[in-house]
């Protein structure tokens, strides 16, 4: 048990997000065959006046509050990856999970009105693949990494300077 590698999580650093919305674009088109940020499982809350952005995303909680909030058993945690998966056959659309998530990271599909939960694209999240490191920053905004790995990534940033 002790040798088990630490699980990877989706990490985001809003401080280096340039607000391009590629994550929402690739997420929505890969699931629904359409670009529609309001059907994405990750969201960028952009402040266009300040040029800043906040990334709202599922953190693959160890004890997910969303799973606990679900009374129909539609939400469950996948032990292999630690992600939360949704069984739409059991989902009644009560949205208790949406209210239950402390990170506001379960979204309501604007078309179906059902909850959207990040499933890590089965282990290689597309949003991370398309999140591009801007040369003004030392790292990209999105990472699929262990907690330790992400700490290291963020540490580099303090020394990065644009010349």
């Amino acid at each position, binding site marked *: 048990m002790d040798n088990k590698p630490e699980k990877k999580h989706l990490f985001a650093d809003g401080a280096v997000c340039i607000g*391009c919305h590629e994550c929402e674009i690739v997420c929505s088109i890969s699931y629904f065959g*359409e*670009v529609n940020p*309001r059907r994405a499982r990750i969201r960028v809350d*952009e402040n266009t006046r*300040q*040029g800043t*952005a906040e990334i709202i995303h599922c953190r693959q909680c160890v004890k997910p509050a969303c799973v606990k909030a679900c009374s129909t058993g539609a939400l469950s945690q996948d032990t292999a990856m630690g992600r939360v998966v949704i069984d739409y056959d059991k989902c009644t659309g009560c949205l208790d999970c949406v209210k239950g998530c402390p990170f506001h990271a379960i979204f309501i599909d604007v078309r179906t009105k059902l909850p959207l939960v990040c499933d890590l694209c089965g282990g290689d999240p597309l949003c991370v693949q398309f999140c591009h490191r801007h040369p003004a920053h030392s790292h990209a905004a999105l990472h699929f990494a262990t907690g330790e790995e992400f700490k290291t990534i963020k540490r580099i940033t303090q020394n990065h300077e644009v010349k």
Partner: protein
Amino acid sequence: MVGGYTGQILRVNLTRRQISTEPVNLDLARQYIGGRGYGAKILMDELPPHTDPLSPANKIIYATGPVTGTPVLGANRYVVITKSPETGLFLDSYSGGGFAPEMKFAGYDFIIIEGKAVKPVYLWIQDEQVEVRDAGHLWGKTAWDAETELKQAVGDAAVRVSVIGPAGENLSNLALIQNDYYHQCGRGGAGAVMGSKNLKAIVVRGSRGIRVADQPSVMSMLRETIDRTDTMKPAVARMLYGSPLTLDSTNLFGILPTLNYKYGQFEGTAQIDAAAFRKKVVQDTSCFGCTIGCTKVTRIATGDHRGEEIGGPENETNGLLGANIGIASMDEIIYLNILCDSLGLDTIGVGNVIGWAVECRERGILSNSDVDGLDLQFGNYRVFGELIKKIAYRQGIGDLLAKGVRQASQEVGKGSEEFAMHVKGLEYPAYRPGPASPGFALAYAITERGACHRRAWPTLEEQMLPPNSTQGRAVLLKRLYDQRIPWHCALTCDFAILYRGAQLPEAARTIAAVTGWELTAGEMQELCDRVATLLRLFNSREGANMNDDTLAPRSFQKEAQGAHKGKALTPEMLREMLEEYYALRGWDKQGIPTPTTLHKLGLDG
């Protein structure tokens, strides 16, 4: 449905408060794709000849294209197409940000605005729900305040807003339309057309998706393009320095407008070049669906306005509100940029009218009382700030300058037309045509909307050709002009495309993957010829002819300094380049499309 398109046109008649939708005509779409092409076709077909641009009869067309909002890098732009009050001719003015994709999420490829509202209104679009709402409380507000208040009014911070400032309300020929605070349809007075319709803003929120025909191809192109940007030096430079990168080159090449285009190099360049600009950047930010992130938020570091921020300035602003009016300070340029953007004024036009007014004072053409006692001298940014406010509110001398440099110089006369820098009424941007750049002379002369650097940009490639010569210019300019047409129809940013190959085969591949149509580079070439010729027809219908394809008299004067001292670009040289260009387009020596050309392009119907 063909991929990419939403398939719908929204039509709003403000006089009758009538809102309707109609389908996009797919036969026309195949011929004109969208954006600039399809939008121009609508204007040509629907606008009666010789319509007064500021009358209710004029139309504003917000146009996107099939590629807009898809996962193609930089597919975030819309174009506003209308008849310009500044030139009286065709106007297409583009803007990035997030408005265009949102318009398509709401379900519309085009929005056509007609008529005039009795009182100030704004348009609130949520998918099929479209309302004309009262904007009385917003009239007079700056474009920035109005955008913020509109977001509060509809209770959703994620809506996208396209809005005018006081300059547009006051019908200035320099008035722009702005979205997402820092993105503008800057040129030609589109903001005044909106103001003339009593339309303060369009607010949009959509929930529908955009589908593409060949999703795997579109996704792999996106992957390729993003990867390529990392290895291309110009792309990385663009990411870090944005458009202000250009100023270093234009100064080096001797084509940076300086002191009202008198000179081509500015002694204060080190204070306003790419490096000086980068020092002011506090945030790197991006348009929707673009990883380049060339929008930069900058902050004033010193002086009375310390701490104020803006998305900008862009290269044109550094050129026109910097070198051209003798300002050698980024903080001062940022301050003037903040005034222009919030009041809804085009920085290019403003830099021109200020330069012209200063020179009029120097020469005694305008008296101290003519300029309301303002101490108009190059470099005096505080006075320029006051002048910008007067332009937006049309007070005193500002009322004259608000008309743009052509009208102002015509009213004042006394030889001031000699140094009124415009083509067809549109002020020169931040490239100075002359012996150092005959290419820009041709670019300005042939562009339908007037002096413009965004249709064909010969800055770098012209360096391979001999200076002070007409050699190779017509062929180069046609190629560069055509390179952008498909992207302006598609509609995507024309910077982002440079990083994956902007040529016609690439345009064909992209539009084909999105729409599902089989397209060839040959068809793209035909699209270019068709669109360019259609715009030529529009302008000639409005009374323009070959004599309008010219430059400001100053551009034909002998150089007073620099590498080409004592030499001049001559009207004969321009005429030679024009005739060569007309011939390449299949137009006669007077620039009139020949019957054969019209027939070939299907424009003779």
